[in-house]
């Protein structure tokens, strides 16, 4: 079977869906971050595939930037997570409800 662009895009979409599902359902902050990583990386797959398909480097460039941004997000995110954990000893999302309404 020939693997074509649409397969990549479908994969990308499926991964994106998985990421979305993870974002919605995970209660552990760390797992949530993983889900966002999946989300961003699913896009990278798409970009790379389209870039190859179009013979245009812009997509790959975009993918690199996404990777870079994802990395810095992880840095910031983990920093926040660590502080939070230090304060509360928990990283459960349902604990984080001091503001509402």
């Amino acid at each position, binding site marked *: 079977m020939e693997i074509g662009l649409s397969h990549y895009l479908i994969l990308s979409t499926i991964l994106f869906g998985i990421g979305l599902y993870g974002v919605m359902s995970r209660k552990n902050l760390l797992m949530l971050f993983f889900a966002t990583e999946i989300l961003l990386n699913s896009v990278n797959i798409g970009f790379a595939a389209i870039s190859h398909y179009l013979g245009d480097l812009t997509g790959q460039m975009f993918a690199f930037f996404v990777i870079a*941004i994802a990395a810095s997000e992880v840095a910031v995110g983990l*920093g926040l997570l660590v*502080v939070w954990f230090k304060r509360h000893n928990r990283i459960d999302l349902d604990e984080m409800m001091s503001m509402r309404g």
Partner: protein
Amino acid sequence: MIQPVNISMDVLNLTTLAPMLVAVVGALFILVIDLFKSNLDKSLYVMISILFLFVDLIAVYESSLTFMQNGTVIGLFDVMQIDGLAIVSQFIIVIASMLFIPLAMTSKRFHEYSYPEYFALFLFMIAGFQFMVATDNLILIFVGLETASLSLYTMIAMHNRAKSFEAAVKYFTMGALAAGFYSFGAMVFYAITGSVEINQIAAVLDANSYKNLGYVFVAVAFLLASFAFKLSLVPFHTWAPDVYEGSSAALAGYMSIVPKIAAFIVTMRLFEFLVHSDIVWLKAILYAFVIITMTISNLWALVQSDVKRMLAYSSISHAGFAMAAVLIGTTEANTALLLYWVMFTFTNLGSFSMLWISRQKNLLPGQSSDHSYEKFAGMIKTAPIPAVIMGLFMLTLAGVPPFALFWGKLYMINAAVISGYTFLAFIMAINSAIAGYYYLKLIVYMFMKEPVDSRYEKVYTKNLSLTLKTVIGFAAVGTIFAVFAINPLLNLIGGFVYNSGF
């Protein structure tokens, strides 16, 4: 065999980068100072920031002169695009930042300002926003957006309170999701047009007369979702109240202004051509966004018991109001949006600063939030001048003439009227009336109720310093005498907007 790339400096046109570079250099400069000598006072950093922002402003001014002579300037591999929108919005961004950063000079010490990194992040953030508005390349928008956002998350967290962390985490997580939406949307556009530049996307779509309409819709849906998050349009707004409550009032005020104007500019660039291509779907969606955001956040603001949270919802509502400009999409509407935002800047600067000066280290006795309405009860008796000024800002937010925001509203409704959006105009009017209630509620508390607790009296101006007084005075004068600034502003903004084709 790689061919040597030969690019002339003229094509590169590095001057387009000058404003952002100034900000970045400023940030690095602060970090370097800290390397040599730590524990310097925050006032130093504030002043350095302002200095650099001033230089930044001059750079923007320079580019505006160029724009007036030569029209839109393209630079840096065609990535930078300095048009009228970019210039006006950079003016707003830089000036607003200059007005907000002095709020750091409170008489009480706050945790975040003892870190020079805070100011460095601040400048980085400004650079990020400036990149966002000065390009039509989706990559650079993304980079600018994330630079700014990541700095912002950190700054919120640096306030070092349980609520601040919670706010930062919430904002961060949702921001990450929005980033996913954004990149996915960009990917779809890339897939169907082979470009990540808005101009070219538009050109390609026009050329093939929107044959992949379904995919365009998907792309727009994702991009819209991500910007709806930034602009806090319902139902993507949920971060806003919590983040506003969790961060310091100064930063909350800042967040209500600068990130949003940047996002508005991008939204205008991104959706304007789509709106003009008569895609009914997009119009309907935007219409729904505008009306729902305006109305329902107003209703939520009605029921708040904390002033800052109320202001958060009110900012959401104002964003919805301004979003109408994107929907209408005429020159008048875009001018109105920018005018509105200039006016909103002054007003929100004032109102959040007033909250900021009454900020105390710990919660008041018997209070569960920092700025509950009860705290301000009977303020006219104990602190008449702050009460009057606060009342002024509330009236301005409500759109009572002749104060600043009234003119923004007037022009915005007018833009709706002349484009035939009669229903929208009436909804805007009615929403302004509903909004009157919650602003009035604070006035009622301040002017018409008896003080609840004598211990509250001392906090109204607890944080006040000369600098803050100056900022508030500036905001107050700006709101009161706005009427005299409208005409030049209108000419100026209108000229910039019109000449950049929006």
